């Protein structure tokens, strides 16, 4: 039923559909109506992260060690959280600098170094080969399995059969053809690969559907739902263990290192960088991907454990490789369509990875390795050719073919010894080497080229020694001796236990050492050497990308003379005459004629366009090859830069100083206003005090003179006048005392005598001192003081003064004969509450605050009302506040007044 013909035909048909989508996507892109410009396609394209490794390998891993498959997906989920912080910055930089790949990015950051670009490319190629090989292996294995349908038997691979009898080889050839068709079909090489992104998004959807379908069938058709499946598994001790977290080898450290690897790989694997950064159409899509992509990962991982457990239950003898459960379970259930769908899902996962990865890598190989070598070796020969876009495409096509064939060779000679997961993790660890130069370079401006070179090469060597070489040794390609005994027989150099460091798994070990060397090299290398001009410019532009979108610092670096026509021809050679003319028209917007000689800005503009086609480093070399006369020496560049930096620094300082001056003068003005206000208040106070002092003095003097001038006055009247003199003298004395009190309190020179006092006894004292006042006015005083002592800490005399003041105020305002005052002492929340209530005329609401101000007295026209000094309540308030209490009045006209004070317990 599933003959070779059917399988191959459906596989080819599937690839045809993909091709159709890609073609349509490109068409739309050319027409300016992008089909990938939405966050959902963007998110789906990110799922290129899930390769055949996910499709088959997760189940394989879960079948062996349970939830251990999760860190590889938790890592990207964690990274998604950081998208807005990290990814957006990278995307912005990429757009501003027209960066085409991860190698281009690293090279651009560190002064457009072609050496760095080449190094990154080499690391990527070496690091990614295992990954490509496992995809090929997955396709070949699944094909071999499926063609035996309905028999389920592990295909016997033999490295001894010639490659022409090996169907993996043919798979590789087909993929080469497709990759070339997909990725380099375009002559116009500067465009992003919109069609491919559309195809990848489709593949992501397809593999998700296929995988979930298999999961649903296994769970609900082959077993009676998840509970049945898990119950059956729980009945078997070796399977029950898979469902617990305890089985994770390496413990939490292992999890963390795996998660870290996955995080870095998710960002820095070349294809990931391509879809995440280079193919990003709109920064705002990142916002949606932050939660949508983790959701995708969640869904595709949902059925990993059920399929793994189902496979272990059904193939209990252990003769079926767990990596193939996704395919073999539908086969044993005799469901040919589902099996075919699963095969296509796996194919989809594998091909999207291979196609995108190789196209991306071939661009890097072309721009960052082959072109620089050609440019250096024979610039004249290049300059002589009128159209180089054909050459570029040729290089890229050759690159694609070489990469896939190398992947095939790795598979054939090494990959067999390793499970899918192991090979994938080796690639992850290689990609993680780009994390320090990129991430640190994003935030630390001083990171420079030398540091990046040292760190990257060091990290790479450690990676190769601790992961790649042992993998090769295990495959028998080199002696295993150094793995077990260490290089040169030195124990300290054992690749899985460098310097005696023992870790539960080799990845953790490798991550630790390579990151240590990489970060250390970057930091120390950067600190020990001075960056050159272009490194400084680039570093500053990367670190400050959000602060200054456009900065012409770059343009300073070109000071040679070049004809505009020459510049135009150079550009035309790489991106085609028509596009070159269009670009120049855009730049010289509105001007009829091209200027004869290009200004630095135009040169820079051309360099950036060129960078889009052949990478930053090569573009720089190309431009300088047509520069007439001088190219700036580094010393000159430094001078120019220093000068402009100095000017900027100077004006920045000037601005800062004038701001400071402004602030200082504002402060002075404020201080002056405050002083003037204080002065005014002081004047007013003195004037008021003077007034208050003169008033009783006036009566005293007037009556004294009257008495003096009238020695024969009637005794009764004389007595009246004399008692006025006495009363006014007392008033004067009181006033002077209170003014002094107030001044002391205000200036803080008062001596508070703090001791334990009995509040109840204190009030009793105050009542005794004022009893005469009550007697004089025939007013009654009701005491509600409780029957036990109330101890607080405070100044006895001052508090007595307050109570006396309140009591005498109360009695003063009481009506004649019918006056009634209540004094009450009671506990309230955390404090003692003292209330003095009278049945006087009351105080209007708007006066409640004012009566506590100095010399403010409630205006009343009732003649003969005794006058106070206007300081009693303000002083009382100060005293109460000094005891951390508060005092206020509750009253209204005609309702009497209640003065209430609260003192903390």
């Amino acid at each position, binding site marked *: 039923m599933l003959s070779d013909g059917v399988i191959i035909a459906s596989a080819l048909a599937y690839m045809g559909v993909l091709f159709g989508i890609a073609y349509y996507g490109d068409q739309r892109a050319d027409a300016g109506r992008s089909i990938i410009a939405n966050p959902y396609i963007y998110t789906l394209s990110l799922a290129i992260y899930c390769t055949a490794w996910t499709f088959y390998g997760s189940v394989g891993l879960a079948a062996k060690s349970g939830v251990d498959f999760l860190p590889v997906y938790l890592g990207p989920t964690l990274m998604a959280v950081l998208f807005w912080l990290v990814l957006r910055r990278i995307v912005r930089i990429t757009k501003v600098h027209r960066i085409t790949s991860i190698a281009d990015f690293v090279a651009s950051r560190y002064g457009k170094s072609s050496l760095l670009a080449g190094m990154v490319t080499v690391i990527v190629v070496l690091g990614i080969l295992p990954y490509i090989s496992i995809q090929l292996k997955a396709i070949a294995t699944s094909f071999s399995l499926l063609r035996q349908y309905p028999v389920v038997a592990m295909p016997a691979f033999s490295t001894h059969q010639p490659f022409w009898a090996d169907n993996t080889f043919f798979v590789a050839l087909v993929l080469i053809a497709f990759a070339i068709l997909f990725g380099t079909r375009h002559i116009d090489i500067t465009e992003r690969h919109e069609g491919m992104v559309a195809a990848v998004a489709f593949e992501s959807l397809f593999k998700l559907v296929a995988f979930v379908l298999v999961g649903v069938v296994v769970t609900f058709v082959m077993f009676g739902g998840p509970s049945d499946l898990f119950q059956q598994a729980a009945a078997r001790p070796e399977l029950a263990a898979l469902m617990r977290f305890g089985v994770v080898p390496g413990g939490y450290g292992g999890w963390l290192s795996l998660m870290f690897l996955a995080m870095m790989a998710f960002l820095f694997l070349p294809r990931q960088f391509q879809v995440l950064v280079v193919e990003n159409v709109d920064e705002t899509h990142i916002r949606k991907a932050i939660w949508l992509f983790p959701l995708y990962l969640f869904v595709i991982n949902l059925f990993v454990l059920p399929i793994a457990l189902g496979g272990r239950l059904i193939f209990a003898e252990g003769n079926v490789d767990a990596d193939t459960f996704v395919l073999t379970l539908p086969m044993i259930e005799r469901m040919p369509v589902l099996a075919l769908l699963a095969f296509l899902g796996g194919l989809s996962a594998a091909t999207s990875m291979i196609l995108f990865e190789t196209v991306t890598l071939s661009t890097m190989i072309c721009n960052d390795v082959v072109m620089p070598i050609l440019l250096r070796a024979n610039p004249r020969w290049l300059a002589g050719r009128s159209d180089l876009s054909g050459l570029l495409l040729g290089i890229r096509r050759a690159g694609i073919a070489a990469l896939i064939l190398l992947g095939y060779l790795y598979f054939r000679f090494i990959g067999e010894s390793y499970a899918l997961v192991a090979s994938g993790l080796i690639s992850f660890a290689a990609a993680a080497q780009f994390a320090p130069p990129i991430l640190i370079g994003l935030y630390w401006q001083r990171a420079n080229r030398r540091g990046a070179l040292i760190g990257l090469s060091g990290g790479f060597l450690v990676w190769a020694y601790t992961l790649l070489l042992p993998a090769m040794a295990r495959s028998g390609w080199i002696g295993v001796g150094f793995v077990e005994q260490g290089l040169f027989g030195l124990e300290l150099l054992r690749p899985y236990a460098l310097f005696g460091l023992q870790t539960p798994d080799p990845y953790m070990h490798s991550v630790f050492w390579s990151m240590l060397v990489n970060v250390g090299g970057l930091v120390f290398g950067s600190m020990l050497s001075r960056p050159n001009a272009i490194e400084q410019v680039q570093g500053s532009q990367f670190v400050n990308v959000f602060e200054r979108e456009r900065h012409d610092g770059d343009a300073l670096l070109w000071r040679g003379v070049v004809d505009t026509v020459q510049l135009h021809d150079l550009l035309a050679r790489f991106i085609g005459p028509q596009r070159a003319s269009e670009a120049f028209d855009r730049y010289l917007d509105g001007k009829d004629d091209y200027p004869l000689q290009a200004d630095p800005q135009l040169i820079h503009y051309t360099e950036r366009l060129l960078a889009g086609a052949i990478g930053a480093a090569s573009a720089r070399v190309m431009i300088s090859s047509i520069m007439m006369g001088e190219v700036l020496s580094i010393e000159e560049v430094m001078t120019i830069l220093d000068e402009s930096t100095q000017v900027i620094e100077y004006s920045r300082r000037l601005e800062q100083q004038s701001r400071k001056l402004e602030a200082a003068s504002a402060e002075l003005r404020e201080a002056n206003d405050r002083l003037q206000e204080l002065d005014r208040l002081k004047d007013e106070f003195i004037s008021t005090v003077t007034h208050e002092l003169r008033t009783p003095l*006036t009566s*005293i003097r*007037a009556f004294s003179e009257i008495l003096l001038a009238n020695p024969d006055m009637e005794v009764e009247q004389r007595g009246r006048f004399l008692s006025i003199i006495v009363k006014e003298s007392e008033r004067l004395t009181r006033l002077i005392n209170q003014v002094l009190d107030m001044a002391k309190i205000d200036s803080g020179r008062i001596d508070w005598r703090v001791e334990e006092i009995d509040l109840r006894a204190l009030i009793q004292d105050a009542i005794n001192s004022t009893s005469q006042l009550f007697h004089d006015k025939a007013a009654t005083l009701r005491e509600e003081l409780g029957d036990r002592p109330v101890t607080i800490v405070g100044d006895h005399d001052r508090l007595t003064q307050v109570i006396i003041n309140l009591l005498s105020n109360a009695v003063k305002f009481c009506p004649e004969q019918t006056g009634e005052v209540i004094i009450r002492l009671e506990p309230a929340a955390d404090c003692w509450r003292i209330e003095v209530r009278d049945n006087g005329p009351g105080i209007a609401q708007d006066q409640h605050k004012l009566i506590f101000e100095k010399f403010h007295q409630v205006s009343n026209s009732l003649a003969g009302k005794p006058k106070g000094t206007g300081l009693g309540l303000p002083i009382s308030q100060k005293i109460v506040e000094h005891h951390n209490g508060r005092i206020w009045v509750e009253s209204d006209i005609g309702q009497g007044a209640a003065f209430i004070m609260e003192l903390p317990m």
Partner: protein
Amino acid sequence: MAARRAITRKNNHNIPPERKRLATEENVDMANKILVVDDEPNIVLSLEFLMKQAGFQVRTASDGEVALTAIAAEPPDLMLLDVMMPRKNGYEVCQAVRANPDWKDIRIIMLTAKGREVEREKGLALGADDYITKPFSTQEVVERVRELLAGAG
């Protein structure tokens, strides 16, 4: 001006006590009418005593509004007007009096416990005829009142 005048006349203001009791029953109607305005009852009391003793007809008011009502009821010949009072202060009363042409003959002596020169200027500017600072000399007050009334007559 008023102050200097007061000083120059200082020597001949010794009026014998018997002359002060001119306010006999029969010449009350002819006596000049004085309005004493102050919110301090004791000061009002002393001024009232002094003015009566000097032979004037005296009424009192304890604040600015009461004072204006009293003026409206029967305009005095002269008022002793305190500045700092509740409701309407001395300046406001002075202004109100001067704003009414019917009351242009009323002499006004301002009394104030605020001794600053600016207060005095303000009072004179508002139309007061003289200005006395508290605490005052009883003889001087009587003398100034007499002087002003004599000038007016």
